[in-house]
C-alpha cells in the first residue's frame, strides 16, 4: 500500500491534517485503531480557547499568548505559542464553516466561556471568557465535524487498523509503518512520502485517568523504539475534577460557569490558595491545592479522599443549557445529581504535555551529537503525541483542542507544500521491513510469560504510586527500579490467543509495550528534573529553578539521564515574555 501521506491516528489533529491534504487532492490515508469518531478527542468537553473576540470585542490573541506562556511555567516555546494564538481564530472559523454546531451568544456569534488561567490585558484586566464551546460536548462536535469533512473530501480511512512500528529506509528516512488490519489480522507495510503521528496521549500509564482505554501512547512507543527522543515527558497534567472512583472527566467549564470546590467543612478553599483567580487558577495549582486539603484531613466522604464540586447554586436551567453532559455523567458515575448535590471529585491524570519534539510545521526533531536540532526526514507529529511545545509544563484548559486544529492544519499545509515540490526517498528494503516486524513476530511466537492486562495493572500502580501529583527523589528512584524489573516481563508478554480475526488481545499486548516505553521515559525524566515547575511538583525541590531548568528535558531511548534543549524565546511580533513568579 502506498500513499502520499499517511496519518496515524483518527482524532482531532490527525483528521485536521488529513483534511488539509485530501482537500488538496493528495492520496491521503488515516490509520486508526478505532472508528474515527471513537477517538479520545470525542471526550473533550469545555471548548476551544481562542481569541475570536466574541464575548469581548476587545479581546486580543496576544493576551491569550501571555496566558499560555505563563500557564506553561515558561517552558512553552514562545514562537509556537505565538503561531497558535495568532492562527487560532482562522482555524476556529474554518471548523465553524464546516458545520461545527457551536453554542451561540445573543448576537449569534460563537459562545465563549471563562476557563482557568485566562486573563485580559496581559494578566492585568481580570478574568477573560475565551473558550469557544458547543455546550459541554465540544470535542464530540469537533471530532464529528472533522470526520464529516474528511468523508466529503474522500480521505482513505484504514479503520480498525493498528500501527505497530516505524519503517525506515537505508538513509534513515521514515518511509511508513507496519500496520495490522485488526479485523482480518493481515499485516501490511503502509508506505508513505510523509508519515504523521497523531496518536494522542497515554493517560493509561496511570491507574486513575480521565483518558479512554485507547490512550496508550502508541506513537511515543513507536518513536522511542525507532531511536527518536521525547521531550518534557515528565509533564503530566492531573485534571482537578475527575469523578472520584470512576475517573471520568468533569469539565473545567463547570467552574467557568460559576461552580466551585469545597472541602468537608464546606469551605471554598481555593480562595486561600489563589486569592484572585480562585477556582480558575491554573490546573496544576488547583490540583495541588486539592491534594493538600485531602492530606491535611479536610477531604470529603468516609475516607476523606476527595473534595466536592458544587454546582447546585447555578440553577437547573443553566445546568441544563450549559452543562447537560455533566449532569448525565455525574448521575451515571457519581450517583449524584448536580442540580441538588455536589459532585465528588479528585485530581486525575488527564493530559501528556510532553511528546515527540517538533517544529511549528509538525516536522519531528531529534538531537544530533552536537546537541543541535535535526529534522527527521519523512516524519511528522501533531496533537497530544507531539511536543511543539505550546503547553510547556502545564496546559491551559481549552488549549488542547486549539493545538489539534492549529497544528494538524499546519502539518497538513507544510506537507502539502513539500509534496508539491516533490518528495522522493529510496524504498525500504526487505531488511528494513523485517526489522520493523521484529516486535510483532516476537509476540506472535510467545510461548510463555505473563498476560498483558496483569502487567498493565502493575505498571499503572507503579506510576500512580511513585510519579503522581507530588513527587520525591527517593520514591522515584524506587519507582524506576520497579520499572527496570518490569521491563523484561513486558518485553516477554505472553499472547495466548494466536488467532487472526479481530484479536484484541494481540493489540493489547502491543499497546502494553507502548505504555511501558512512555512510562519509563516519564520516570527517568521526572527523576532527572530537580526542580518544581508546572505539573511537575517535587517535595525535595520545591522551587522553580530557572538557572538550571528553564529548558526542555530530552529523553533519548536507552539513556538513564535526561538531556536539555533550550526553550524558544523569540516572538515575531513583540518582545518575548520573561519568566516571572507565577501566581493566580
Amino acid at each position, binding site marked *: 500500500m502506498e500513499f502520499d501521506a499517511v496519518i496515524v491516528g483518527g482524532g482531532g489533529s490527525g483528521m485536521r491534517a488529513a483534511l488539509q491534504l485530501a482537500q488538496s487532492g493528495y492520496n491521503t490515508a488515516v490509520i486508526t485503531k478505532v472508528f474515527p*469518531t471513537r477517538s479520545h478527542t470525542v471526550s473533550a468537553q469545555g471548548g476551544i480557547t481562542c481569541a475570536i473576540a466574541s464575548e469581548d470585542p476587545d479581546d486580543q490573541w496576544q493576551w491569550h499568548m501571555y496566558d499560555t506562556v505563563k500557564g506553561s511555567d515558561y517552558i512553552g516555546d514562545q514562537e509556537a505559542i505565538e503561531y497558535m494564538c495568532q492562527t487560532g481564530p482562522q482555524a476556529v*472559523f474554518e471548523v465553524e464553516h464546516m458545520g461545527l454546531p457551536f453554542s451561540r451568544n445573543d448576537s449569534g456569534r460563537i459562545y465563549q466561556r471563562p476557563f482557568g488561567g485566562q486573563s485580559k490585558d496581559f494578566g492585568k484586566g481580570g478574568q477573560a471568557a475565551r473558550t469557544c464551546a458547543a455546550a459541554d460536548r465540544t470535542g464530540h462536535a469537533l471530532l*464529528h465535524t472533522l470526520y464529516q469533512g474528511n468523508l466529503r473530501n474522500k480521505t482513505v480511512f484504514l479503520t480498525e487498523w493498528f500501527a505497530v512500528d516505524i519503517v525506515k529506509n537505508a538513509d534513515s528516512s521514515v518511509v511508513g509503518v507496519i500496520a495490522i488490519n485488526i479485523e482480518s489480522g493481515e499485516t501490511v507495510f503502509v508506505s508513505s512520502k510523509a508519515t504523521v503521528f497523531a496518536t494522542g496521549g497515554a493517560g493509561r500509564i496511570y491507574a486513575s485517568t480521565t483518558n*479512554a482505554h485507547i490512550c496508550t501512547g502508541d506513537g511515543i512507543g513507536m518513536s522511542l523504539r525507532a531511536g527518536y527522543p521525547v521531550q518534557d515527558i515528565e509533564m503530566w497534567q492531573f485534571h482537578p475534577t475527575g469523578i472520584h472512583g470512576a475517573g*471520568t472527566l468533569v469539565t473545567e467549564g463547570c467552574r467557568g460557569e460559576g461552580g466551585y470546590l469545597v472541602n468537608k467543612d464546606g469551605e471554598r478553599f481555593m480562595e486561600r490558595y489563589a486569592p484572585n483567580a480562585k477556582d480558575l487558577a491554573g490546573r496544576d495549582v488547583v490540583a495541588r491545592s486539592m491534594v493538600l486539603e485531602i492530606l491535611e484531613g479536610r477531604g470529603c466522604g468516609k475516607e476523606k479522599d476527595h473534595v466536592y464540586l458544587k454546582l447546585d447554586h447555578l440553577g437547573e436551567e443553566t445546568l441544563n443549557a450549559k452543562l447537560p453532559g455533566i449532569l448525565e455523567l455525574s448521575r*451515571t458515575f457519581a450517583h449524584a445529581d448536580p442540580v441538588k448535590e455536589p459532585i465528588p471529585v479528585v485530581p486525575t491524570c488527564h493530559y501528556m504535555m510532553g511528546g515527540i519534539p517538533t517544529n511549528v510545521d509538525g516536522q519531528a526533531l531529534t538531537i544530533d551529537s552536537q546537541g543541535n536540532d535535526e529534522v527527521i526526514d519523512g516524519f511528522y507529529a501533531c496533537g497530544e503525541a507531539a511536543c511543539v511545545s505550546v503547553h510547556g509544563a502545564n496546559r491551559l484548559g481549552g488549549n488542547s483542542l486549539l493545538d489539534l486544529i492549529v497544528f494538524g492544519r499546519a502539518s497538513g499545509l507544510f506537507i502539502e507544500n513539500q509534496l508539491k515540490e516533490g518528495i522522493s526517498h529510496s524504498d525500504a528494503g526487505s531488511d528494513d521491513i523485517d526489522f520493523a516486524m521484529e516486535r510483532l513476530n516476537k509476540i506472535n511466537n510467545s510461548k510463555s510469560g505473563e498476560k498483558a492486562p496483569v502487567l498493565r495493572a502493575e505498571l499503572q500502580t507503579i506510576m500512580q504510586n511513585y510519579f503522581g501529583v507530588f513527587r520525591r527523589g527517593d520514591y522515584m528512584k524506587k519507582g524506576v527500579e520497579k520499572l527496570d524489573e518490569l521491563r523484561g516481563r513486558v518485553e516477554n508478554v505472553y499472547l*495466548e490467543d494466536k*488467532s487472526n*480475526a479481530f484479536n484484541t488481545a494481540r493489540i493489547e499486548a502491543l499497546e502494553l509495550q507502548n505504555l511501558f516505553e512512555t512510562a519509563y521515559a516519564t520516570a527517568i525524566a521526572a527523576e532527572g528534573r530537580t526542580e518544581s515547575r508546572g505539573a511537575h511538583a517535587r517535595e525535595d525541590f520545591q522551587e522553580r529553578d530557572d538557572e538550571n531548568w528553564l529548558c526542555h528535558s530530552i529523553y533519548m531511548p536507552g539513556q538513564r539521564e535526561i538531556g536539555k534543549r533550550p526553550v524558544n524565546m523569540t516572538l515575531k511580533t513583540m518582545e518575548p515574555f520573561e519568566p516571572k513568579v507565577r501566581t493566580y
Partner: protein
Amino acid sequence: MLTVSVYRYNPEADEAPYMQDFPFDSEGKDLMVLDVLEKLKVIDPSLVFRRSCREGVCGSDGVNISGKNGLACITPLSEAVRDDKLVIRPLPGLPVVRDLVIDMSQFYAQYEKIKPYMMNESAPPEKERLQSQEDRAKLDGLYECILCACCSTACPSFWWNPDKFIGPSGLLQAYRFLADTRDTATEERLTDLQDPFSVFRCHGIMNCVQVCPKGLNPTKAIGHIRTMLVKNAL
C-alpha cells in the same frame, strides 16, 4: 454469584456461535457491564468486544444487554441483571465478525448516504457564520448522536432493508443538516430521500427512542423529514 452469559463466535475456530456462561462475583458493587467484560477478558483473553471512552460518548460498546440494546459502559448491573443472570449478545441484525463485534459497514454506508456534512456553497464570511440561539437550539437532540448503532439495530425496518432504509441514526443525522440554518442544500437532501425506502420504511414503532443511550428521539426527526418531504412534493 452472577451468571454472565456471553455470545461467542470465532470464525477461525467455531462452526457456529454459542452462548458461554461465566460465573461472576461483582462483590456487591453496581459495576457497569463494560467493567464485567473487562474482568472476563482477564480470565479469557480471547473474548472480544469494542470499547474506548468508557463514559458513553464514543459509541464503541453498543451491545445487546439482557435483551435491550445499550452501551456496556453506562449500563449498570442493577439495570441489566435479571434473576442473577446477565446476557450479553452482539447488536442484532448485522453480521458478526467475532464474539460481540459486529460488521458495521452497512450502518456506516447509510450514514454516508445522507451526505453528513454541511453544504453551503456561498463564500464563507471572514469570521463565523452567524446563527441565532433559537436556530442553534434546533440542533439540540440531533448533533449529539454518537453513531453507536443501538437504534438502527433495534429497528425491524432496518433489519429488513439495511441496504435501502437509511435507519433511525442516519435519518437523525439527515435532519440535523436539514435543520441547520447554515446549510443551503435542503432541496438536494430532500430529493435524495424522496423514494419509497429511505424514509418511508419507518413505521413509527419507536424502538429507536426506547434504546437510544443519549436519550435522543429519531422518530421525531423522521416525522419532521416526512413533513418536509410532503411539503416539498406539493
